[in-house]
């Protein structure tokens, strides 16, 4: 770590958050109201658009189903696999992902919160940006080709396997196993070319979670919740008018990012000592967040694990192998933080498209140096 902050990253947190996504994907299929295998819906016809109803059902399942399960996460970073497990509960209004000791993520209709049991704080999260499935699928289609890839069987359940490839070069990006019965995504593998990036898979899944299972997964938060400090953070969506004003004031608001990432939201965050601007971009499959703060980064404030980044060509810090990826650098008195799950090469290309440190011109540098000298010698 560069500064004095405590190391907080935990696979458990990874699990928790990852489980959050997985839970959203899988919960719908596993809900108490989920139909049994005998009532499984017919498998989509294997035509060119056969993948569409499969993903449509996956989206509906992630919003509606209730279930509990144990998820396995493997992330390959620099060739080394990192493995973690988490418990997931999708209840009527909430999604809870817990990992041993460290983090619990709860998402509901009114948002949710993130609990760090080690740090002892609770951070309210904004409402889940669920969007609309048709719009999400259209965005997906613009950049990727989705195809039915066959049938399979996971957790003793029949599944439909899908493959997502990059348009143009046809490189594999995702393999998905969607439960025919519930619509939940039971397994997801992410690739960048021939390189494996991530694997998320359910090791167990109960589509009719009982009271005991719910109590067990909630206990981690309920036991500690009373003593946790709640961090209040206001996150306000920025409308077009305000966005125009921000642009004119010098904030960086790219109309899009390299690789087909289009803007899906801008938020003003009420932070502790600054008001970061949060821009969210998606390419239909991955999401990238760009945070900006007016001022130079206090490098000592970075969480554990930060190290100089070599890929950008200018001074920056990264957390090698961290998920999601993250980069921090300064340009022209503004601190830029990039967070995202885009494939590494795309992530770096996005960072390179953003403002970078500029060496001052000689007259500017001399003028600034003389001003500093004068500050020193003047009474």
């Amino acid at each position, binding site marked *: 770590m560069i500064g004095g902050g405590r*190391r907080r*990253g*935990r696979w458990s*947190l*990874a*699990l928790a*958050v*990852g*489980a*959050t*996504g*997985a839970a*959203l*994907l899988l919960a719908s299929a596993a809900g108490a109201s989920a139909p049994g295998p005998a009532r499984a819906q017919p498998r989509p016809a294997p035509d060119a658009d056969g993948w569409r109803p499969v*993903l449509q059902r*996956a989206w509906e399942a992630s919003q509606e189903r209730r279930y509990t399960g144990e998820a396995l996460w493997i*992330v390959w970073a620099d060739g080394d696999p990192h493995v973690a497990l988490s418990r997931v509960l999708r209840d009527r209004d909430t999604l809870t992902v817990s990992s041993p000791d460290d983090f619990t*993520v709860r998402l509901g209709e009114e948002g949710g919160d993130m609990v760090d049991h080690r740090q002892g704080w609770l*951070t309210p*999260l904004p409402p889940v*940006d669920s*969007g609309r*499935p048709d719009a*999400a699928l259209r965005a997906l289609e613009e950049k990727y080709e989705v195809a039915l890839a066959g049938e399979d069987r996971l957790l003793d359940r029949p599944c439909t396997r899908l493959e997502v490839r990059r348009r143009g070069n046809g490189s594999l990006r995702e393999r998905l196993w969607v439960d025919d019965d519930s619509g939940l995504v039971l397994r997801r593998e992410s690739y960048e070319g021939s390189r494996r990036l*991530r694997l*998320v898979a359910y090791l167990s899944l109960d589509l009719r979670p009982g009271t005991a299972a719910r109590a067990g997964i909630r206990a981690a938060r309920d036991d500690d919740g009373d003593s946790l400090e709640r961090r209040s953070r206001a*996150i306000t969506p920025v409308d077009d008018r305000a966005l125009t004003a921000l642009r004119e004031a010098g904030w960086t608001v790219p109309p899009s990012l390299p690789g087909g990432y289009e803007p899906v*939201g801008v938020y003003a965050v009420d*932070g502790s*000592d600054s008001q970061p601007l*949060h821009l*969210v971009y998606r390419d239909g*499959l991955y999401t990238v*967040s760009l*945070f900006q703060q*007016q*001022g130079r*980064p206090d490098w000592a*404030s*970075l969480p554990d*694990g930060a190290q100089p980044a070599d890929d950008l060509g200018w001074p920056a810090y990264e*957390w*090698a192998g*961290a*998920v999601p990826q*993250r980069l*921090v650098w300064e340009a022209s*008195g503004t601190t830029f*933080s990039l*967070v*995202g*799950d885009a494939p590494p090469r795309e992530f770096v290309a996005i960072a390179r498209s953003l403002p970078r440190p500029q060496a*001052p011109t000689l007259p500017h540098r*001399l003028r*600034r140096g*003389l*001003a*500093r*000298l004068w*500050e020193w010698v003047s009474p």
Partner: protein
Amino acid sequence: MSDDCAAAAPLHSAWLDGMLDDDGRAFVEAHLAGCAACRAEVESLGRTRMLVRNLPVRRLPDGVDLLPDLTRSGAGPRRQGPALAVTGGRVVAAALAVVAGMLGGAAFALGGGSSPEDRLVNVPMDLYVADHIVHTVGGPLSTPVVVDGRR
């Protein structure tokens, strides 16, 4: 040192410059032919002078007048005056150049880095990650993000 060496040594520099008359040149060359110590001294003197001649010539900045007294009309040809004025002007110019150089160097060095008016901000990366995650879990292909900052 022999008497011949003592007599030839003062003439070495003039001999190198070709300023001796025939007798003087003949005397020095005859002595150098038989005196290794004086040859070594002459060679050393020659190398030193060559180095000095090869030093870069520094031009004074425009506007710096080293010979004000000489260029003014009516200035009398005083015996010591012009020489002292030239020397003093060079010293002043050199001093100015040194001060300017030091100031410029210091300004250049201090002018790098961040602007003094930029304030320091904390980078709440953990909260950024949490805020990011919320936007990744909504759709049918929302990535189940694993959060891990360790390496």
